[in-house]
């Protein structure tokens, strides 16, 4: 099978005019790239099979960019866009080059990490549409957004952590330089004057650094204390501040031991852990952002005088008549007043085969009108639509999930009071034994420092970062910090059917004569119906093809009429068998030809179900589709427990009834509440944005293997986290008695801390090592 020169997908259907491209859009895109002299793109590019394919989307809903264009004082317009379909750096190069070749563009910069494109141009603000079209014609998806709304709090926090880390690193290096001199001096007879000088220098470097770099921890500790809780940051802040204070007083007194190096390196290691943690969590907000962006489309309304107006969705009222063009997304719930068309209900029901819409049938916001314009009487708008209801169900479920407390926080709750109590007991004990109070306080501070909160603080983030990084390399995106823990605990897996167990797109099956296929393809190219798209090739549609919504396509030829469409319309007798989606081709002088389509199962679906069974998990299917198709799929895949015809609320109820820790895998809007309510959830990257936003993990590609992979890695990560905690406590077990007895010098404290942190990190790296 040949691959399309532009997007790399297989070329199916008729080999129409040149089997080099899979569709017209790809051919046009190829010509654009060649024409701009950027053909080296194709040599450099590495197709990421997991990303959205580079097929230009011909029926993408129109988005109004005007509201997002910002104009600076110098007359330069600026537009921020999110980009979908970036396969590798060559795509970044291509997009930037294509845009900068436009004459009025001042700059175009694509941030590869966040996938955000910033375009600046002179001249008219209305150019925005043309510039965006230049890029979408190549097959990328672009969506405008308002940078002020989108979480830049994340970026600010990461920068703050980096700054603190830089300062702490600088201070740690220099203070350690001085401290090693002092420790060496203990053994080599350094005089007190030199030692004091070095202590004063350490104080000069360490104190400002501690005051600045510790701010993230002090802030978090204060917030927790004010809320009446204790988190991991409280003992850290106490230890650091006490250590600095005690060391300062020791320096003032001319004493032999100062703990500046311990305090600063503690801060440094902790900041490293915190930064890694922030990087791991900061990904994939984009799905939720896209959902926000989706509400931007304006609605065309027909007013009483018969004229058309375009209004923002917020101004549409019940009872108004809205006009929805072919290829446009319906923005309101309503009843069809006039027109017949096919509507893609996959957003709501999960089924990719369109449903016919005729006067009096109900349509829902978020679905796609495919073939012909419709006039709709609005019944519900905005917050009252089914779409909004489903999103609300989902948000309510997410609230419940947000209360899950991670293992690290649970440990912190126990750990902090124990550590503080121990330090206090040490202090009082030594006082009672007759030591002077500064000495006793010094010993107590040593106890606080040496109880190694840095190893504990690193234990979880390090494993999470390595696990997330490894999964990301396989096209599996972990979106939340506690996702791995919850994933490791699941005992039962529930799959949705369409789009999850199956690929979700109709594909042509069977063999057909080349001539029949070519003729059918030339008719099909004129329609946006998914079945027709599956048939069409890159050839142009035959001229004169007319589409009858809900029925098919017809073409008048000199010999007679050629029809491609549904069974009854083509005049074929119904033999009663339920055969799934199909199209018939009839014409003068030819026998009727049947084109059958199936929604193919993912290649490894049966194997994955078997593996899950072997891992000790029960597998079920919950689907919104008819019982006949669901049972057929269940049999093919080897699942015995299945339910069909489930609405979104039903799915949530069933999950709750299952009781045990359930993993939900789904893709449609009708799965979103269940995805949010389940203990852990996965969603394929082909799912709609709301589901991707609701799921914990998003996986790319056409295989189900990522489900098994994610669970396996999560379980191993869980084991490693517990090992890390064990190692950290082991260190504590050895060093705490030493500290309580007053035997821990700053040298020992620093050694213990660094060694424990390194051991914890080393242990976490084992995750990346084995297969």
């Amino acid at each position, binding site marked *: 099978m040949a691959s399309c020169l532009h997007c790399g997908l297989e070329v199916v259907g008729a080999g129409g005019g040149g089997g080099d491209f899979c569709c017209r859009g790809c051919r046009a895109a190829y010509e654009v790239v060649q*024409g*701009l*002299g950027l053909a*080296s793109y194709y040599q450099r590019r590495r197709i990421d099979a997991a990303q959205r394919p580079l097929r230009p989307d011909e029926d993408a809903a129109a988005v109004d960019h005007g509201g997002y264009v910002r104009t600076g004082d110098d007359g330069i317009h600026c537009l921020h866009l999110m980009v979908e379909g970036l396969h*590798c*750096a060559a795509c*970044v*190069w291509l997009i930037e080059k294509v845009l900068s*070749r436009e004459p009025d563009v001042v700059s175009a910069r*694509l*941030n*590869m*990490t*966040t996938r955000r494109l910033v375009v600046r141009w002179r001249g008219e603000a209305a150019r925005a549409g043309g510039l965006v079209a230049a890029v979408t014609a190549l097959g990328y998806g672009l969506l405008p957004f308002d940078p002020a709304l989108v979480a830049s709090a994340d*970026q600010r926090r990461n*920068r703050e952590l*980096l*700054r603190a880390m*830089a*300062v702490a690193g*600088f201070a740690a*290096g*220099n203070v350690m*330089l*001085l401290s090693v001199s002092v420790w060496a001096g203990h053994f080599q007879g350094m005089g007190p004057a*030199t030692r004091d*000088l070095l202590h004063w*220098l350490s104080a000069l*470097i360490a104190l400002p650094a501690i005051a600045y770099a510790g701010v993230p921890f002090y802030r978090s500790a204060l917030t927790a204390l004010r809320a009446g809780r204790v988190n991991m940051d409280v003992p850290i802040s106490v230890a650091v501040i006490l250590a600095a204070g005690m060391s300062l007083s020791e320096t003032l007194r001319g004493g032999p031991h100062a703990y500046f190096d311990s305090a600063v390196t503690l801060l440094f290691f902790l900041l490293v852990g915190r930064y890694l943690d922030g990087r791991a969590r900061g990904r994939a907000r984009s799905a939720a952002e896209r959902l926000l962006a989706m509400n931007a489309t304006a609605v065309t309304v027909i007013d009483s005088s018969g004229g058309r107006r375009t209004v923002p969705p917020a101004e549409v009222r019940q009872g108004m008549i809205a006009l929805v063009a072919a290829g446009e997304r319906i923005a309101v719930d309503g009843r069809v007043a006039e027109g017949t068309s096919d509507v893609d209900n996959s957003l709501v029901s999960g089924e990719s085969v369109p449903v016919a819409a005729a006067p009096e049938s109900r349509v829902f916001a978020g679905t796609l009108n495919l073939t012909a314009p419709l006039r709709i009487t609005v019944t519900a708008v905005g917050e009252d639509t089914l779409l909004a209801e489903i999103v609300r169900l989902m948000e309510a479920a997410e609230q419940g999930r947000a209360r899950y407390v991670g293992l690290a926080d649970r440990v912190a709750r126990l750990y902090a009071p124990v550590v503080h109590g121990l330090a206090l007991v040490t202090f009082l004990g030594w006082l009672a034994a007759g030591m002077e109070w500064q000495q006793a306080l010094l010993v107590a501070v040593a106890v606080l420092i040496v109880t190694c909160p840095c190893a504990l603080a690193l234990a979880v983030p390090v494993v999470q970062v390595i696990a997330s990084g490894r999964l990301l390399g396989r096209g599996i995106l972990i979106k939340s910090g506690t996702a791995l823990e919850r994933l490791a605990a699941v005992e039962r897996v529930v799959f949705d059917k369409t789009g999850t167990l199956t690929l979700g797109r109709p594909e042509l099956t069977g063999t057909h004569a080349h001539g029949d296929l070519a003729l059918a393809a030339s008719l099909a190219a004129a329609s946006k119906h998914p079945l027709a798209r599956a048939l069409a090739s890159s050839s142009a549609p035959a001229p004169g093809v007319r589409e009858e919504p809900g029925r098919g396509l017809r073409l008048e030829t000199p010999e007679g009429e050629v029809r491609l469409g549904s069974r009854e319309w083509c005049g074929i007798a119904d033999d009663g068998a339920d055969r799934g989606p199909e199209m018939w081709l009839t014409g003068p002088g030819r026998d009727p030809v049947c084109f059958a389509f199936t929604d193919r199962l993912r290649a490894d679906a049966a194997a994955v179900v078997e593996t899950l069974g072997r891992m000790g998990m029960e597998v079920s299917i919950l689907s919104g589709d008819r019982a006949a198709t669901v049972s057929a799929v269940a049999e093919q895949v080897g699942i015995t427990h299945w339910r069909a015809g489930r609405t979104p609320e039903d799915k949530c109820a069933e999950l709750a009834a299952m009781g045990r820790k359930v993993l939900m895998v789904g893709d449609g809007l009708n799965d979103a509440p269940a995805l949010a309510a389940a203990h852990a959830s996965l969603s394929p990257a082909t799912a709609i944005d709301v589901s991707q936003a609701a799921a914990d993990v998003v996986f790319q590609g056409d295989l189900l293997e990522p489900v098994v992979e994610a669970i396996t890695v999560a379980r191993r990560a869980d084991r490693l986290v517990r090992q890390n905690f064990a190692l950290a406590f082991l260190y504590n077990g050895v060093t705490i008695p030493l500290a309580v007895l007053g035997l821990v010098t700053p040298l020992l404290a620093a050694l213990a801390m660094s060694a424990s942190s390194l051991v914890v990190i080393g242990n976490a790296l084992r995750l990346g090592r084995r297969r």
Partner: protein
Amino acid sequence: MNALLYLIPIALFLGLLGLGAFLWALRSGQFDDPEGAANRILFDDDPIDEDRPESG
């Protein structure tokens, strides 16, 4: 001992220079796109007369 009196300040000064440079780089946004920066070195930029792409 005399050496310490001027060597340590020199070391600190050099260290502060490095820190200052890092903080400047951070503020000018050079750490916002680590993946893009890694890949951009491989891009081929057109020669200077790129605003005349007549040779397509």
